[in-house]
């Protein structure tokens, strides 16, 4: 089975974020970048488990500049066989999907996995767009994935419950929590990652349908108003009269 896993390079969850260029660009200076957790913990690790059980290969693909290579090497250290970096700025979901589709369309991948969304731009779009560009079925929010006899069985969250679906390969799946447990790369993996193939692919020309014109930090909450533990009924009163929440 040939599996392709799409990975994004995102600021670590605990990053204190800031912006530059009159608040039109993310300030990456001094920021720790990681593989997007949904791409890594769930999509990549499940892909590796399937490969280990059934044979085949796991390729990771990333759209981004050369400075994202440490993140790609981490994916190789966890166990991917090889990696592809398409040399383009990932600043529009459709453009990213077009880049990946252009590379993947004639490579015969049986399964294409991505995280359900990035923790940076929270778009949840590239997987579905990739499926459309490659004319493949798509399942989002997948929490379980198994493959037998070229048929994938996917459990995923739907409105008000979960659905178990079956689909003949190939297809695109966006992974949610539950599909696998995070793996920490060991020393052997880290050493091996240095010499695994990392192919650089030039970007194709794509459409840029959206752009970000301004960033603003979310307004934090003003001071928390404390209510004495002996008079919790005071909270209900405040929620009604002041917050108007009830």
């Amino acid at each position, binding site marked *: 089975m040939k599996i392709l896993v799409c990975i994004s390079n995102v600021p670590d969850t605990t990053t204190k974020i800031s912006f530059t260029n009159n608040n039109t660009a993310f300030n990456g200076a001094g920021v720790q970048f990681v593989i997007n957790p949904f791409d890594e913990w769930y999509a990549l690790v499940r892909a590796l488990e399937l490969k280990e059980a059934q044979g085949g290969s796991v390729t990771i693909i990333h759209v981004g500049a050369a400075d994202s290579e440490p993140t790609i090497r981490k994916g190789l250290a966890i166990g991917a066989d090889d990696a592809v970096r398409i040399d383009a700025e990932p600043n529009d979901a*459709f453009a990213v999907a077009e880049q990946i589709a252009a590379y993947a369309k004639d490579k015969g991948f049986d399964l294409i996995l991505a995280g359900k969304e990035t923790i940076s731009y929270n778009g949840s779009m590239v997987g579905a767009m990739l499926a459309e560009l490659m004319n493949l079925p798509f399942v989002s929010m997948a929490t379980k994935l198994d493959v037998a006899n070229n048929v994938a069985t996917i459990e995923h969250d739907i409105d008000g419950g979960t659905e178990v679906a079956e689909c003949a390969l190939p297809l695109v799946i966006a992974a949610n929590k539950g599909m696998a447990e995070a793996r920490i790369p060991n020393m052997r993996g880290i050493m091996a990652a240095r010499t695994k193939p990392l192919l650089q692919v030039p970007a194709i020309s794509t459409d840029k*349908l959206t752009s970000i014109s301004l960033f603003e930090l979310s307004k934090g909450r003003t001071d928390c108003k404390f209510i*004495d533990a002996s008079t*919790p009924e005071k909270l209900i009163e405040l929620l009604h009269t002041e917050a108007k929440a009830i």
Partner: protein
Amino acid sequence: MSVLIYTEVSKGKVKKSSLEAVNYGSRIAAQLNTTATAVIVGDVDLSDLGKAGAKKVLKLKNDKLARLDSQYLSSAIEQAANAEGATVIIFAHDFTGKEVAPRLATKLKAGIVAGAVDNPVISGDSFTVKKNVFSGKAVATYSLHSAKKIISLLPNSFPVELKDGSAEAVDFAVNLDGINSPLKVKEVKKDTSELNLTDAELVVSAGRGMKGPENWGMIEDLAKSLGAATACSRPVADMDWRPHHEHVGQTGIAIRPDLYIAIGISGAIQHLAGVNGSKTIVVINSDKEAPFFKSADYGIIGDAFEIVPKLTEAVKKFKANQ
């Protein structure tokens, strides 16, 4: 030209997030001097769509739409959009919206903003919409450069407004002959809770501070007294104290109710990422250093086992006097 809104049925009626989307789409239609048309799969009472601002409802008809498969549904909505000459298409940013809206955007070469939190600003050729980024730590203003535009609206961004109004409902036959999705449903497991967590206006959530699943009775009592849905933190779901679908946070579901009451949850940044859009946050924790208090509007420092039952009594008293 028109504004098209994809709407959906859940538990026998039009979903609340769909009505929010129709309100949103009809406001955009008014700005563009056109009208809003809703599309829907399913036969239910559609009068709320008219009250929410739709002038017309297209009932999408094709047997293949029995499962809302993204390949079929995106093609069906594309056909409706073309028939209506829609230039702006609205979805709710929910499970279907996430699967289908990006596919449709790809078909139409439409710029898309997924998870919008405010009305678009339209001025001449400029069309901008705000959405949350970095898991709620910031808001980005997106410019859409394409002729056709798609917005999926984050649920609970606006209250539903229903006014006098009615929509003409017509059947719209969809041609899906060329598409054969290999996706088949094997099983659907419905969660049995009465309130859908993402739709809930009030949420009572609890964490490890509750010490064990046997202590959730008082959480459920408080939720019941308020008419709130119940939720939990990640460790609680991971330890199987509560079902996975109740887990809110970065890796669970993101919610933005009017009121979020967090009991015995310390407030790790990953948890905040899923709830920081809530309008009012109450934190109850015995640890006065719990980081959640920094992100709360109201706090009570103390033992949840004593406070929560007293709160439930106070809510009951309050409700009785209403």
